[in-house]
């Protein structure tokens, strides 16, 4: 067991150390989501009024949270592509560490970075009039972590299927954008035509954002959420397990020529 866990810790630690050493990434990580929140939120706040029970800027907070997680967890797997490009992956692969540990380490580091960003967004909530209790906040953090693992695992899976930087960026953008817009982040799922709704059901982020809505809009939950909280949790956990296993096997397979 120690042989499996310790390397995960070490690989995670390295990624985090590097992350916090890069000032620009650190600033971007805090500034980007907040900018989005206030630009989109404030702008559309003027256009969209009434009917929601909450202001639009409040309505999109769970979506912005989901978007933050989506971007940071998904793109954190770029470190795999970097490591391969700069040869460092070979150094890791020739050690006795199991390939599964390496994949899990990458998922965990993506999860942590993304969770930290999520918490920063959460901290903005009181400023736009959303308040929650300590218990709700903790619950929210747990949901953020689950969604982050799921998305980070999808990222590792994709990074393990591709060979170059260029294809990583192309494929990521191709996947991230639809995942964002088909997640209930910007508008309720119920307003969409049926075939798009089916796509949303296949999107793990939909359940994540829905669970955030449950916690953030306790009184309005029946109105804004699309599924029951239990359903959200079951689906998120299921997606997370599947994507983690897929990521581990894809990563392992890529190393076997």
């Amino acid at each position, binding site marked *: 067991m*120690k*042989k499996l866990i*310790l*390397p995960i810790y*070490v690989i995670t630690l*390295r990624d985090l*150390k*590097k992350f916090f*050493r*890069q000032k620009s990434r650190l600033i971007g990580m805090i500034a980007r989501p907040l900018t989005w929140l206030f630009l989109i939120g404030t702008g559309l706040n003027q256009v969209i009024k009434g009917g929601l029970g909450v202001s639009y800027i409040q309505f999109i907070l769970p979506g912005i949270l989901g978007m933050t997680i989506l971007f940071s967890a998904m793109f954190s797997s770029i470190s795999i592509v970097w490591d391969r490009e*700069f*040869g*460092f992956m*070979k*150094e*890791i*692969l*020739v*050690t*006795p*560490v*199991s390939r599964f540990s390496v994949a899990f380490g990458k998922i965990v580091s993506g999860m942590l970075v993304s969770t930290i960003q999520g918490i920063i967004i959460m901290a903005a909530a009181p400023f736009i009039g959303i308040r929650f209790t300590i218990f709700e906040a903790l619950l929210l953090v747990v949901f953020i972590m689950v969604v982050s693992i799921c998305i980070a695992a999808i990222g590792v899976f994709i990074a393990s299927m591709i060979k170059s930087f260029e294809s990583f960026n192309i494929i990521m953008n191709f996947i991230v954008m639809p995942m964002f817009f088909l997640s209930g982040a910007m508008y309720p799922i119920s307003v969409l035509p049926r075939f798009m709704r089916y796509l949303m059901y296949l999107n793990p982020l939909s359940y994540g954002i829905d669970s955030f809505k449950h916690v953030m809009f306790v009184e309005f939950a029946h109105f804004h959420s699309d599924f029951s909280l239990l359903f959200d949790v079951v689906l998120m956990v299921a997606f997370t397990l599947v994507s983690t296993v897929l990521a581990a096997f894809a990563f392992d397979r890529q190393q*076997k*020529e």
Partner: protein
Amino acid sequence: MNAIEVKELYKSYDGVHAVNGITFEIGYGELFGFLGPNGAGKTTTINILCTLLKPTAGQAFIAGLDVSRESDKIREHIGLVFQETTLDNELTTFENLLFHAYLYGMGRHDAVKRIDDLLSMIGLQSKKNELVKHLSGGMKRRLELIRGLLHKPRVLFLDEPTIGLDPQTRANVWGFIKEMKRAEGTTIFVTTHYIEEASDFDRIAIIDHGRIVAVGNPNKLINEMGRATVTFGATDGATVQTLIGHGMIESGSGEYQIKTEDPDLFLKQILNLSGLKINEFKIKKPVLEELYLSLTGSEIRDEYVDRPRKIRGHNR
């Protein structure tokens, strides 16, 4: 049981045989050189032995473990310095080493002590907390070398360890490698295309086009190939007649050569003859480089240019 045993090993890439049926073994504690021109198949062989690449056919064993079936166990016993740099530039010297030690399951206390010992042995103690991106090429190479030895591997693989280094650093690197072999009994498998570096290895194999063309102790190999060439320059008719009478063969205008195992004896015989007008004589003994060139038939490039793999493949 040998440290390394390789039997009829093959690796092909769409019809190109990078490794074309090689067989050899290396004893424990040996310093073994793998010599060959670029594209000979050295790196491919190392990658198979280090379990990073699956062979197309054949078998290889490290410390009795099968590379195809026991790769996880093998990785605990080997160290590797790759041909290209594989350090994390954004981490410090110490962090790179500690990361490596942890991945091999070393405890922090042991790791730190070993790191300090090795850093001062190789002369990098002052760069311990420097970011690797600020180190020179030679320093990076030395850092990789001690990283490869950090976990006390039984077999250390070095892929062109001195490529692109200045003479001082090269000497420093070889001194360190030989010191570690002596002190820790590490078996060392090293590839190089600088043949002069290999003259004091325990054994060498010369590889070309994926095949081993010679294997053995470098001095013995030279001796086996090794009859000396005696060359005389002479124009006088009678002298030439006598030289030819003694088995010499014209090799150029006015030059006559003979290959012999005992050049001194031959010279004595010739010089004892009277009436010769020999203008000059010289004795040339073969060196490793000649052996290498006669076997691989190719010039050795000093500068290694790692051309794109596809182009190299088509060059065949």
